[in-house]
Every structure is written in C-alpha cells, then in structure tokens.
C-alpha cells in the first residue's frame, strides 16, 4: 500500500502527454528581468543603464535576508530599468538587457559547451565531501536560488537552520501533482545523478542525515532513474506515493512521507522536516559544483497544441513567453503554470521567471455559469487542509474577514480542489483568496 496524505484531495485528469525530452530554447536577444521573482523583499539593482554585463553576472543583489539575487542570463547592455508587464498585465520594475549579435553568438557557444559537460551524468562525490556547510549555503545565496516548485521561497533561508534546531529528514518534492506539467519529471529522467548530488549537498549544508525523494506513482521512469543514481554511502531513498492532488503541497507531502501532521500555521520544521523541490536540488548542484547561478530553468509547453510541440525547454530567465516554440491555437487561454494553480496570462510578451514551471494552452469555453450552492459538501471532502471552503468563500463574498480568520482561512493553500469539485461550478477559491488576503491585514 503506497502512502499518500489522508484528508481530502482530488484526482483530476493528469494530461501528462508532453515529451520527457528537454530541448534548449535559444537565448533571447532581449531579456526582461523583474526584480521581484521570489517571495520576500525585491532585489536591488547593482547595475545601471548603459552598463555592460556578461552572462551569469550579478545584476541585482538581495536587499534583506529573505530575498534573492538576480543574475544576467545573457551578455549585453543594460538598456533600461523600468516597469514591464507581467503575465497578469500588471507592471513590475525590471532590468532590461539587450544583446548584440556577436554577444548572442558567443553566449550560445558558451552555453552549448557548458551543457555538453553535463552529458556524462556521472556522480562525483568529492565535492560534497570537501565543502563545509557554510560554504555551500554561501554559494546557494550567491547564485540567487529560490524554490523552483512555484512558491519561489529563497533557498538559502530554508537551508540555513538556526543553531540548536535539528531537522531529521530532508524531503525532495518530485510529485509534480499539477496536471499537464512535466518539467520536474523531465529533469529527473535526464539528470538523475545531478539531482542526487544536489540532495547530498543540501544534506551537507543542513546536517540532516536522511533524505527522501518523493514521487507520485505515475512517474515510474523517473523513480527508476533516481534509484539507479543513488549512492549507498548516503541515506537517501526514493519513495513512490499514491497519486493524488495536491500531493506537492508542503504539508501534504510531509504527511504522506512521514505520517506526521503539521499544525495550523506551523512550518514543516516543527515536525523535523525540510521540503525542497527536485529542480531546486538540481539548481543547487549547478551553483555549487559548476558555479552557474540560476539563470535558466525548465519550462513545459503543453496543452491543446500538436503533440510534437508539447515539450520541455531549458529556457533562460527573462525570455518572453511568446518566443517559446508553439503555435497559439484559436480561442484558447494561456496559463502560466498548470491548470489548477496557474494564473491566466493576459500578456504573452511577459518574461519567463524563476517560478515559471510551464505554459499551458487550453482550448474551451472556460468556466461554466455558477449555480447556487446545493450544500452537498463536495468542497469539504476535497479540501486537503480540512477547511470548509463553502463557508470561507461566503465570508469572502460578504466581507466577513474576522470570521474568516477565525475559521483558519490562512491555512488555505489555494490548490483549487474546492472549485474543481463543486458541482455548481461556483468560484469558491476566488472568494477565499479575497478572504485570505484581506484577513491578513
């Protein structure tokens, strides 16, 4: 019997139809780099208009502890620092870098040479044995790494434990429970040894003796690849979990792996666990072993597009979404991320950011007309946090934010299982989001 979390959860159609290959998306000639690509304080530019930058150079540094630096994904000239549109259409301050043709050509050559060294995919453990934990965290901080699962929490904060606090288990999130998205799956199949090395570096940095790479049972290829790459010298195991959405939620994953429940408002550390994404482990290995900061990530392009276009692309941060190779179907909506937790993109000239895991292009009429609530309780059964979504939604709609706070609206992880399960197609999560935002003030 495979493990999973106990309360709630849903089983949406997986639609994991994209290929597991990772293709290399050409570098853009112009990169748009928003200063706030992570949770926490926006980073502060260290370059100014007209400066020459080279690929991998720090262009904005972290302004406080909970913040992350930003590096140039391409060589070129800083053309301006001004607001650019985000996929939501809202403007955000960003650094814009423009490359000349020569710079572009030399970047592409350097990039091809860099990734060629990755092909052997053989584990080399001398590194994680030689470095101290402070040195590893310092390199992670210097590389601007954030959680690549979507929450974009700065990794160096998660991996620097306060003295006296001991964690027992490091959990690597390879669930990718979101329908359609394949980027983590592709990464695990392509570079399993690098991910395992990244995990070893994380274990060294935090001093945690045990690590578990958790996957859902719909990714047998990735599980096999990772198991083959494991080193018996380290206590790392690969655990397959029963597929259920939202298994990739931090609290759900800790419960599925360890059986321990995290109290309302507490962190996984309260039960001795730290959760990181497998893509973050890969980025950690890149940063510590090869010195490449977080300037590229895997982006899945999928949805109702021809099968040969559904693929994963190693894309430079700052590449406009519209440069990714796909033909936009008619009457379709573009979603940044997956269909459950992603947000509709209003503007496709917005850039790929550190937290952009995919672009899902869906045909269809969109949502159905909402009907009155029939009190069936489907949303209560579906909620993985054991909340009462119909009630929280009503509080949000009627602006009863104090009541919402008392009903633990802050525990909502916005997974959308309630809206998905509602037979009356009510926009439950829309109103819960309002209650969550406003009751925090």
């Amino acid at each position, binding site marked *: 019997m495979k493990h999973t979390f106990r309360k709630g959860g849903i089983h949406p159609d997986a639609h994991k139809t994209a290929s597991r290959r990772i293709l290399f998306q050409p570098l853009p000639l112009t990169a748009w780099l928003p200063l706030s690509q992570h949770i926490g304080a926006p980073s502060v530019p260290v370059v100014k208009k007209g400066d020459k930058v080279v690929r991998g150079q720090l262009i904005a540094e972290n302004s406080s502890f909970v913040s992350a630096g930003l590096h140039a994904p391409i060589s070129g000239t800083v053309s301006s620092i001004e*607001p650019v549109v985000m996929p939501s*259409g809202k403007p955000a301050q960003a650094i814009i870098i423009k490359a000349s043709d020569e710079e572009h050509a030399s970047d592409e050559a350097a990039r091809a040479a860099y990734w060629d060294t990755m092909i052997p995919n053989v584990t080399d453990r001398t590194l994680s044995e030689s470095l101290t934990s402070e040195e590893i965290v310092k390199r992670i901080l210097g590389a601007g790494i954030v959680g690549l699962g979507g929450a974009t929490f700065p990794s160096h904060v998660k991996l620097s434990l306060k003295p006296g606090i001991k964690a027992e288990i490091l959990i690597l999130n390879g669930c990718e429970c979101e329908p359609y998205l394949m980027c983590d799956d592709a990464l695990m199949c392509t570079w399993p040894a690098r991910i395992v090395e990244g995990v070893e570096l994380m274990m060294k940095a935090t001093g945690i003796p045990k690590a578990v790479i958790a996957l859902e049972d719909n990714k047998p290829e990735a599980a096999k690849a990772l198991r083959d790459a494991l080193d018996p010298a380290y206590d790392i195991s690969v655990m397959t979990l029963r597929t259920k959405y939202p298994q990739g939620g931090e609290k759900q994953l800790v419960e599925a792996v360890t059986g321990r429940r995290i109290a309302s408002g507490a962190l996984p550390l309260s039960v001795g666990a730290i959760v990181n994404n497998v893509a973050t482990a890969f980025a950690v290995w890149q940063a510590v072993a090869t010195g490449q900061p977080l300037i590229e990530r895997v982006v899945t392009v999928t949805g109702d597009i021809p099968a040969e276009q559904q693929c994963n692309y190693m894309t430079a941060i700052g590449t406009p979404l519209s440069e990714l190779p796909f033909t936009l179907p008619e009457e379709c909506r573009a979603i940044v991320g997956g269909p459950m937790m992603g*947000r*509709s993109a209003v503007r496709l000239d917005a850039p790929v950011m550190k937290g952009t895991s995919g672009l899902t292009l869906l045909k269809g009429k*969109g949502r159905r007309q*909402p009907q009155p609530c029939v009190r069936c309780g489907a949303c209560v059964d579906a909620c993985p946090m054991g909340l009462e979504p119909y009630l929280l939604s009503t509080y949000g709609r009627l602006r009863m934010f104090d009541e919402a706070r008392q009903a633990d609206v802050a525990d909502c992880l916005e997974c959308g299982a309630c809206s998905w399960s509602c037979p009356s197609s009510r*926009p439950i999560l829309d109103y819960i989001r309002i209650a969550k935002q406003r009751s925090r003030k």
Partner: protein
Amino acid sequence: MLLFLYSILLLAGLGLAGALVLYATARRFHIDEDPRIDTITSLLPGANCGGCGLKGCRDFATQCVRQGSLDGIHCPVSSPAAIGEIAKVLGVEAVTGVERRIAVLKCNGTCSARPELYTYDGARSCAVMDAIAVGTRGCSYGCLGCGDCVAVCRFGAISINPETMLPVVDADKCTACGACTAECPRHLLELRPVGRRDRRVWVACSNRERGAVARRVCQAACIGCGKCARECPFGAITVADNLAYINPDTCKACGKCVGVCPTGAIHATFTIVPPKPKAETEKQ
C-alpha cells in the same frame, strides 16, 4: 355554570400572577435611558451605513447624547435641517459649514477608450479581479466594472452604465457615507464637496504611469502633461506621479482646465461655455 366560574377565576389568577412576575422583573431590571436617544434615532436616516464612523444610527444618537453636543461627530447622510433638529434636541447650536460631499469616479476608461482585451469568467467581483490580474481592460489603475461599489451602496446611488461599463453616481441619492470609497479595491471613488450651484471639476483618471505608457492602455488617461496646472488661475492643480489632482478647497470650478486637457481626462458637472483660449488651441 360553576365550571365557567372556575375557569374564569383560574385564568384570571394565572394572568394576574404572570403580570406580577413581569412587573417585578421590569422593576428589577429597569435601565434608565435618556429619552433623547430615541428621539434622535428617529431623526436619523436609519440606514446604519456607518458613514459617521460609528456602528449605526442608534450608536450615533447614544454618542451625541452622552457627550451632550455634536462636536467631532457628524452624520454625512442627514440634511442640514435634520442636523438642526438634532442640535435642538440636544440644546446646542447646530454645526454649520460642513459642506455636503458626494462621490466622484476617478476613471474615464469607457469601452471606446480602452477596449476589452479578454473575457473574464471568474467571480464577478472587482476585489477578485484585482487580486488575480490587471482587469479585462488592461489598465492596472482603472475601473474594473464588476460593480463592488454598486453592491455596497445602501442608498442605491450607484449604477453601472451599460454603455461605458463604468459606475455612475446619482448626485441626488449619494450621501457621502464613504462605503464605496472604502470598498473599491483601486480607490477610484473620492468624496468631493458638492460645490456651489452643483459645479464640480475633477480629474477622472488614476493612472500613475508615464504619459506614453498610460495612453497605450487608455485613450482617456491623464498623461501628466501639466497643461491644466499651467492654465489654472487659482493654483488648485498639482501634478504628481504623472497624474494631475485638483484640490477641491482651492478650485473655484471655473472649468478652464477642462478645455485644455488633451485627453479629456478632466470632468465637470456643468457644460463649459467655449472660452477664447480653447478656440486658439483648436486652430493649432
């Protein structure tokens, strides 16, 4: 016959006993309340809108009777006559000089000025729409048109104009309670003095982007050119963050700024008699 007598006596006795219990309870738990509170409550509008900053009309009445005056508290909904009545009940002079205000919309993004970019099928609520994205009309400052202000108005003073998809404030019904100004997620409604002879001038835009950026999303946006500020003979207009603001205290509602605005972002409640400077700009 005797049965009738017994029945009547029994019921009368029960009734009397009950009455005595009620009388004793009423005496025991009697609270002396100033009768003026009831009087003032009946003079107030009774909408419990919270425009005074208190919990409702009775709370307002209790507060003025407790302090014995109208100092520091004001019901924006009541007419000056009703305030005078309340002052009379309290035995004080009525507060004068509190000018009536009404809400104005600081957005002019009609359907023709900023066409709809995409269809939105989420919950019909401005708050939800603002939290998710920029809105169907592309402007991250402008009206979202879902009518949260309409829903929150207790006086039925706001309605959505189906042609422009913007809320319209009925000046006769608006009581300046401030519910809509607090509700709008983009703070597009402002309470401004009603003005002499109902003449009001205001900048109907909230876009703080640079002119070119603002114009890209909306034809009717304020571009912060400052023409109005130079035109104003009273120095009532300031331009900050690429957005003009007309100070209602110094504005004399002459309407000169309305004519010079290149995008038509300045609105007035009266029609402007075309002055000479406007004819010159037309020639140019």
